């Protein structure tokens, strides 16, 4: 007897996708001046979902001007308690429309509906709810007696968690009293545009949040716009460096949340079944397209073979395929371009002598797919041990002692996250001290919470998102001393 799950598709009828979308500026959708558009596709089927406006210079000008007007005339004058109520309203509306957002996110991004339904959308709503409460308590947040917003915040977000990253950006910005121009990623603009619709429903004053869609050029126009006071960027380290260089010498405040190459360290006394789950969650969650993904498994040599066997057995039960199926664990890669990168780096892993293992699974013919893959016999010099793959590819390295684990874990220009698996409390605390990473998950992995600061060391960026610390990015500095 075998237990074959029948398809359990979520209904896509819960969301209306327009054939084309304009830019959301000053509370209304407007056509781009140049009339240029681009297409966004469902990466699981390659079906075109909609035509989306590409914002050019005059459009970005308009959006920044609208944000400035809204800041000067409305938002900066509004008591925090009133801002709070708008944010609460947004949180509630997100929860009410959660199914719509989850379906749209899955269609546009390719992530499993289980994840958009259980993680992305509820966490986004929770983020607004959390920061809503800060809006009228800023003077008690520990940033001096009279904390001030920057003004207009330019926010550029990635495609891996489109709505959640939007929430991470917009919620603290508005709570602190800034107005916003946000640019979603070009491959995943739809949930941000649906969010714009939600803002109208919430009756947020026009111009407080503006959404301009487009690709890299639009983002560059936005961050280089002289009318912008604050820039928050989440994306790759190379682009982050470029932005930092472009902003250099200006008075624009900048926070960056960039790439990672996290070590997930498993000791011989780990809670082994939970460690296996943690490894799986660490690198196959969201197809591994996660900046804090546990892409380097560092396992104590004495249990390496056993752990890898257990891991492979577990991976064989992962359900890869239609993201809209409620039972899918691993969905589609977000774009052809990303698939290309994953494929290239995996090939490099093979070429450099690592041993490749791929879970047996049938991949759909259309769309962008990559089966969960594990590389063993990986050494620190290999590209797959150093470069961010941003895909469902795990590199397994071994270590002998805690000190060696720390040395290998820290041997990267990145420093976003790390995992530790051991039942020994004092070792956890020692390891946590030694690891140069902004988030350390001990006996768990990939946990996120609105109250918990997130962000990196070294080339993984600077500034924190989430928690009290996340407010700092949206408040101006105090005295010169």
């Amino acid at each position, binding site marked *: 007897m075998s237990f074959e799950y029948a398809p359990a598709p979520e209904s896509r009828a819960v969301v209306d996708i327009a054939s084309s979308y304009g830019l959301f500026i000053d509370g209304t959708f407007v056509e781009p001046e140049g009339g240029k558009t681009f297409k966004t596709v469902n990466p699981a089927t390659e079906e075109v979902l909609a035509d989306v406006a590409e914002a050019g210079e005059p459009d970005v000008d308009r959006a920044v001007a609208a944000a400035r007007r809204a800041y000067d005339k409305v938002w900066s004058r509004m008591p925090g308690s009133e801002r709070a109520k708008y944010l609460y309203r947004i949180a509630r509306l997100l929860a009410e429309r959660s199914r719509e957002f989850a379906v749209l996110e899955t269609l546009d991004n390719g992530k499993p509906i289980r994840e958009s339904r259980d993680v992305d959308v509820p966490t986004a709503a*929770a983020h607004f709810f959390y920061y809503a409460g800060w809006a009228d308590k800023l003077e008690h947040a*520990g940033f*001096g007696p009279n904390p001030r917003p920057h003004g207009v915040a330019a926010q550029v977000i990635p495609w891996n968690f489109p709505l959640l990253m939007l929430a991470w950006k917009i919620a603290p910005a508005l709570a602190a009293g800034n107005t916003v121009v946000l640019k979603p990623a070009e491959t995943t603009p739809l949930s941000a545009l649906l969010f714009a619709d939600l803002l109208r429903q919430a009756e947020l004053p026009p111009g407080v949040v503006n959404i301009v869609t487009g690709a890299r050029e639009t983002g560059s126009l936005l961050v280089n716009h002289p009318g912008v006071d604050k820039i928050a960027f989440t994306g790759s*380290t190379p682009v*982050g*460096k*470029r932005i*930092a*260089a472009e*902003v*250099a*010498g*200006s*008075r624009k405040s900048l926070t*960056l949340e*960039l790439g990672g190459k996290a070590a997930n360290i498993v000791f011989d006394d780990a809670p082994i079944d939970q460690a296996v789950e943690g490894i799986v969650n660490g690198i196959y969650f969201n197809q591994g397209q996660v900046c804090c993904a546990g892409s380097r498994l560092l396992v104590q040599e004495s249990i390496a073979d056993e752990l890898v066997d257990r891991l492979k057995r577990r991976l064989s039960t992962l359900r890869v395929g239609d993201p809209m199926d409620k039972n899918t664990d691993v969905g589609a890669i977000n774009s052809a371009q990303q698939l290309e990168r994953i494929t290239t780096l995996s090939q490099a892993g093979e070429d450099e002598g690592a041993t490749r293992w791929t879970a047996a699974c049938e991949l759909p013919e259309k769309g962008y797919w990559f089966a969960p893959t594990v590389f063993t016999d990986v050494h620190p010099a290999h590209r797959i041990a150093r470069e961010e793959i941003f895909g469902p590819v795990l590199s397994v390295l071994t270590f002998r002692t805690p000190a060696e684990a720390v040395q290998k874990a820290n041997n990267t*220009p990145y*420093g976003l996250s790390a995992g530790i698996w051991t039942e020994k409390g004092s070792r*956890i605390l020692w390891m*946590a001290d030694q690891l140069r*990473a*902004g*988030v*350390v*998950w*001990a*006996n*768990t992995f990939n*946990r996120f*919470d*609105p*109250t*918990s*600061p*997130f*962000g990196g*060391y*070294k*080339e*993984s*960026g*600077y500034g*924190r998102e989430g*928690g*009290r*610390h996340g407010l700092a990015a949206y408040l101006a*500095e*105090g*005295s*010169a*001393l």
Partner: protein
Amino acid sequence: MSARLDVRKTYKLFIGGKFPRSESGRTYKVTSDDGAFLANAALASRKDAREAVVAARKAQPGWAGATAYNRGQVLYRVAELLEGRRSQFVEEVAAGEGIKTKAAEAAVDAAIDRWVWYAGWTDKVAQVAGAANPVAGPYFNLSVPEPTGVVVVLAPQSSSLLGLVSVLAPVLVTGNTAVVVSSEKRPLPAITLSEVLATSDVPGGVVNILTGRTAELAPPLASHMDVNAIDLTGTVGAEGVAWGELEAEAAGSVKRVVRPRDSEPDWSQIPDGPRRILAFTETKTVWHPKGM
């Protein structure tokens, strides 16, 4: 009776707890504000800057690994030694900055007091800037500030001791190590500070002091891949230095950058919080499940 011929001083650099000459062998004349000869100082080179970074990196884990209580004790001890050199500092500040003795005394007193103020922060900053985060789940979740690593400090050009202390001490509080480029024209208080540090309990390499041209030393330090942060405060009034270019160089390794103000601040003001300390920290958040 003829006046005694004074012994003219040629100072050296302070790297890794030692006082080497510049590897370039170069020196430059340090004069008072009114142009009188004061001493020769080492004219540090790019290679000296590189050596200083190596020394700072080597010392960093140990300094960060000391207990906060211990760092506080060590830093407070430095204040005691500063007090002992008070008159020398007053003389150097007065001559270098061209201010009256009374004003120089006030600046030196404020500098010593500021050092004491920062020394007291070592075991408090984590309590002020850390957090136990109430996550919505069965997890213990704690955020703590940690030192960012090796910090390059371009010391203020005008305020040669008070300004220097105001930018250096906060870097050291959490366990960073520093490579200081002293005021170009007024390096003597920085040199004297290095002598104080050398006889204190501050481990070698925790503070490294380079004298020389900011315009020559700042670019290689700003682009150095093994530097975690840079304080550009001292670009104000430095000849041939554009801070925006340094910030752009710093972007290459995603350095934390503290930008200069448009003019050098009035350092006599008491800081309104630990902002300068926190500018050189990383918030680390640790999660652990809570279960039976």
